[in-house]
């Protein structure tokens, strides 16, 4: 029945639109109600984290492969773009694209050996990769500024200086919407279906002639690209990078955002990333108790909503409606 699947995918295409409209509306609303640069700053960081988490969720939520090293890709994208613009005078867009290209090649090279590992061994290998990147960033001080950090020259896009937080908010928003659109399309593509079959049972997928290694590598590289682009934008926006961006804790933070928001939920990643970006800002009122409260909230959320926020809330909403 060649007609049946195509009709379903056409239907799904329409189902994608309301979500994208809702996201755009939410962003427009935010740009209208956010009172000052401080709030815009938090929103921009939430947006950048969301982009990383959407990519990472493709890997964790859809392909069922864990990575504890995505801060490595994020920081490579950040430092790559920063070094090309600051030391070599490249314009920002080519620098971003070149960094993403390099990160993609790097991810492709490490993907095959790393993804042949399973479960916690895979987690260890990605963790090791991240730690090695972070140590290299600290030690190669000539290019990266080492532990003191790297000041990024102000960038201008096509001759226009971008300085205001509002302008950055819109740039990040556009990239975020594009990322969501790309991810939704990918999930609905043959690659996406193959990935979900992987998550279910790798052996069954192989038995159905799905080239599991090939698909895992594709999604690993895509998630690395998402992280790299978000990293480059972060470098341009913040104007200052430190090796902390590559740290093991940062990688853990990305995974936590994905799981908190809900695995295999693209919008869940935005929710998870936004909450974990905004929460520490809110918790500063607790001063010394900040970490205690943060840890407690994280634990309680996962205990009571083990599937993550987005899927749990969606289910409750459905129960409430019926």
């Amino acid at each position: 029945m060649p007609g049946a699947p195509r009709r379903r995918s056409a239907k799904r295409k329409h189902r994608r639109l309301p979500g994208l409209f809702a996201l755009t509306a939410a962003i427009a609303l935010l740009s209208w109600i956010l009172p000052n640069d401080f709030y815009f700053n938090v929103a921009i960081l939430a947006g950048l984290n969301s982009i990383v988490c959407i990519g990472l969720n493709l890997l964790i939520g859809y392909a069922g492969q864990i990575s504890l090293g995505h801060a490595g890709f994020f920081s490579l994208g950040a430092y790559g773009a920063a070094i090309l613009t600051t030391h070599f005078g490249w314009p920002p867009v080519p620098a971003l694209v070149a960094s993403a290209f390099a990160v993609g090649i790097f991810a492709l090279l490490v993907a095959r050996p790393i993804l042949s590992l399973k479960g916690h061994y895979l987690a260890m290998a990605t963790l090791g990769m991240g730690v090695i990147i972070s140590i290299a960033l600290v030690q190669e001080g000539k290019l990266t500024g080492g532990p003191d950090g790297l000041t990024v020259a102000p960038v201008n896009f096509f001759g226009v200086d971008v300085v205001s937080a509002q302008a950055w908010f819109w740039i990040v928003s556009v990239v975020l919407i594009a990322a969501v659109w790309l991810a939704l399309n990918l999930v609905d593509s043959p690659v996406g279906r193959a990935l979900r079959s992987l998550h279910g049972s790798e052996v069954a997928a192989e038995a159905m002639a799905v080239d599991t290694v090939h698909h895992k590598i594709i999604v690993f590289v895509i998630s690395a690209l998402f992280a790299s682009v978000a990293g480059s934008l972060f470098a341009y926006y913040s104007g200052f990078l430190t090796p902390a961006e590559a740290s093991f804790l940062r990688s853990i933070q990305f995974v936590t955002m994905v799981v908190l928001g809900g695995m295999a939920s693209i919008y869940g990643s935005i929710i998870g990333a936004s909450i974990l970006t905004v929460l520490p800002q809110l918790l500063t009122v607790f001063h010394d108790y900040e970490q205690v409260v943060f840890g407690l909230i994280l634990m309680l959320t996962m205990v009571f909503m083990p599937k993550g926020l987005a899927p749990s809330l969606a289910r409750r909403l459905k129960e409430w409606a019926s």
Partner: protein
Amino acid sequence: MAQFLQFLFSGITVGAIYALVALGFSIIYNASTVINFAQGEFVMIGGLTTAVLSAAGMSIPAAAAIAVLAAVAIAIALEKLAVEQAGSASVITLIIITIGASIFLRGLAQLIFDRNYHTLRAFSGDAPIHIAGATIVPQTLWVLGTTILIVIALWWFFSRTLLGKAILATSHNRLAAQLVGINTRSVLLLSFGLSAALGAIGGILIAPISLTSYDVGVMLGLKGFSASILGGLGSGPGAIVGGLLLGIVEALGAGYVSSAYKDALAFVVILLVLLLMPQGLFGRRSTERV
């Protein structure tokens, strides 16, 4: 040669602590397939509590006993109040819960103690001992001796006692263990307590050699996890060999290659081992049932 011995001794000392932490990871993993990311915090609780109590005038054995008990009590609370409540949640959800717990415990330690570094007096003086041109501090002997005793005690526990065999049975096949009447829930509780005790003892032993503070758990936990993976997750001998190997590679790397890249070198070695042996050195070959 003397220099090599010197590096080797310092590697073995740190490696013994990694081994204790790695054993903790493996015990909880065996009982639940969960990686307990709060494992490093038990190391911190052990070392920091002992250091602070001993600085307040308490004798080291008493302070150490309180520290170990505190770590065990916290681990049991973590299992009862969080891990058990999450019930049938997926493994990754449980892992995130332990990450939340580690952030919580670090924050708590910062509140109860402070953000400063603390020292703990060496158990039996600082007079160096000379062996074939290399020198070691007496604390090294404490670290190695205690680790050897613990390993023997664990071996006896897991191979000679009913309780230990029940834990092993649960790790092999949870359902079958339940069927023969093993209370797998209390096995999980016991595993958390045991891992916390091992971590806390490791933290106390190493505190006189390297300082301790509220955030030492992050790095020690990371190294312990790496050691347990290197040896093969869930394998007792693997955790010990993995820990020692990691310590020695680090020490030799720092001595002969570059102290800046010693951590990177350790991870390169781990990656190479995993490429050749995807289950670690002593890991069980897993066959997936379909």
